């Protein structure tokens, strides 16, 4: 199962993944949570902005959130859902 661990940054457009963990502490961690990006959530990458930044993800089929590549690296995911 851990063999499939990637970061959100590596997910291709149109692909879905499940969030496993978020490598951030305190306030940073919370910011992800407020935006619905918590461990267990399903994310689908919709599109990327100019020069690949930011990444638009659909969270749990509900919210559309833009995430910078830099921050997407903190989000550990597993492909599929």
């Amino acid at each position: 199962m851990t063999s499939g661990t990637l970061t959100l940054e590596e997910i291709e457009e149109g692909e879905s993944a499940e969030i496993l963990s978020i490598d951030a502490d305190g306030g940073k961690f919370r910011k992800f949570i407020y935006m619905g990006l918590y461990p267990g959530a399903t994310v689908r990458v919709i599109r990327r902005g100019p020069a690949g930044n930011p990444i638009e993800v659909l969270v749990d089929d509900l919210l559309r959130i833009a995430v910078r590549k830099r921050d997407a690296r903190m989000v550990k995911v597993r492909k599929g859902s």
Partner: protein
Amino acid sequence: MRVAFVGNPNTGKSTLVSSLSGRDIRVANWPGTTVESISAQVRVGEGVLHLVDLPGVYDLLDDGPDAEITLRELLENPPDAIVNVLDASHLERGLHLTLELMELGIPILLVLNMVDEARRSGVEVDSGKLEEVLGIPVVETVAVKGRGKEEVLSGILRARVPAPPVSYGEDVELALEDIASGIEHPARRWLALALLMEQERPFFPIDDSLRDVVEGWRRLLSARYGDLFLYIEGRRISVAHEISSRVVSRRKRRRAVDEWLDALLMNPVAGPVFILLFLIFSFRFAFFLSSPWVDFINTVSDVLGGWILSAGIRGIVASFLIEGVISGVGTVLSFAPVLFLFYLVLGFMEYSGIMARMAFALDTLMAAVGLPGKAFVPLVMGFGCNVPAVYATRTLESFYDRLRVALMIPFMGCSARLPVLVLFASVFFPHGPVPVVLSLYLLGMIMAFITGAILSRMLEYEAPSLFEIPPYRFPDGGRLVKTAWDRTFEFLRGAGTIIMAGVVLVWLTMHLRISGESLYSIISRGILPIFRPMGIQDWRLTGALIPGFVSKEVIIGALAVGFSDMANHLPIGFLEGIGMILDAFARAVRESMGAPGAIFGIPGFRIPPVETSLGDYLSGVLTPAGALAYMVFVLLYTPCVATVAAIKQEFGGRWALFSVLYQMSVAFILALFIYKIAVLIHG
């Protein structure tokens, strides 16, 4: 009975309180509107409810002043009931706070607001089931339309102290009980949790003997659970998630228009182009529509001045009334149309969902200076007028981002500086004035970005930059107008006195005489030596910079006629004055009608013919290199007094002062530098 309204930012707390009490509480569509608690009263049957509107928070233990105000109020002055307002479209985010509030031992009512929005974007919340799961009353409302008011009032009376909603495991519960037994406060369970989370605040009602008990438990429990802060947060997160997955159902289908618009505006190539065009046209719209009204206000001031003269008032008194008081009030008021229209446009962009697309399209660009994509909007707005631009920084979430952008804004050459630059460029560079002016604007932009980059190094603030991309919605015109007016009024009230003071101060320098010489000329001559190295040798040039602090366009007037020349004010008869005002009004109406067409015109510099006397005078005292230095200095030297007032209102006096000093230094260094280079090249 005191009732506190608590919830995430921008969930409609203030709107709800206003609609319940019938009292108008300032509501604006940006987070952080309520920065201190505001209260109102409402009669219910026999009793009176005191409604207290508290600042929006995500978590009572968040950093920052908002959370502190809310937490203090809840602990030091526990209300008889809490109304917890949630945005129905973001239930899970809101529930996180609800679970925390339920630990406070205060009766609580949950209000699901904005159910209209939620429904429109396909989210349905089963409030009956939510009531059952949480064990507290739940009411649905649409606060803007006043729907659900009665239910809220009766719900408040039904509210009871809830059972703790989250269980943290047997051993933690034991610890909580033990710690809580040492606290004399209704919120003892919440306080015990905060202590376990190592989140003490100076105003917690606990005594020192308790600290050892807490320390003992902390050691014991962290051996099992690791970081207790993360553990407790984590429990709340998973309970919030579980509850919301049980009560929220959603319709997946999105409207085709949304998909289509997104494909266009969020396209990596076409997106930024469309967004830029949209920004330019909407700001031009605001600008063209406001300028006839600014002219109208100026005419009214002229007429008032004329009346003063025809009433036989003369000399220093007339001058004070006309150039101090009337011109001061006129300056303040002339910002009203500009601000109002810019706010209208800003409100439209925010509310329609276009702002989020802008942030998306321009994120890469802004990331280069460590700012969120949204920061682009106030910066572009700065080209029109710096003042609304400073207020527009409120659309950014973090204080440091707001501050950084506000310090960058004065480098964006606003439209008031244009006439000055155009005048000098056409006198000294008659063969190519436009490229000269454009490169100066570019210089300003470059300085803005350098400033941003330096500040982001210094302030070293690295919050994750995440933002939501909401569905498109069509704004309700009436509400946009009201919000824009509220924001404008806030400016007039808050910044008006500072601007007045600035105008009067400048007036004083003109009229205070010290041993026969006006303060104005003393200062102008006094600062001249600093400017000599950049080829500025005439004290009238440095003098014109003083009134330029009020507004940069005044510089031309100051150079042309001498600022304190009363000759340009003529007595005006009463009827004649009325006629002029009516005329000006008719013209303003007519020109406003033409504005929508004008925005599509080519942005041209209509280079006005320069009065030959002024042109001759300028070319007599300045070389082209000196003129360039003067232009650079005028472009950058200080934010105008209204911008300073705006910065002070938003960030405090220190930062306003910093901004002035910083701009001065940059202006000075750059002007000198450019002068030297120009001299090197042209000899």
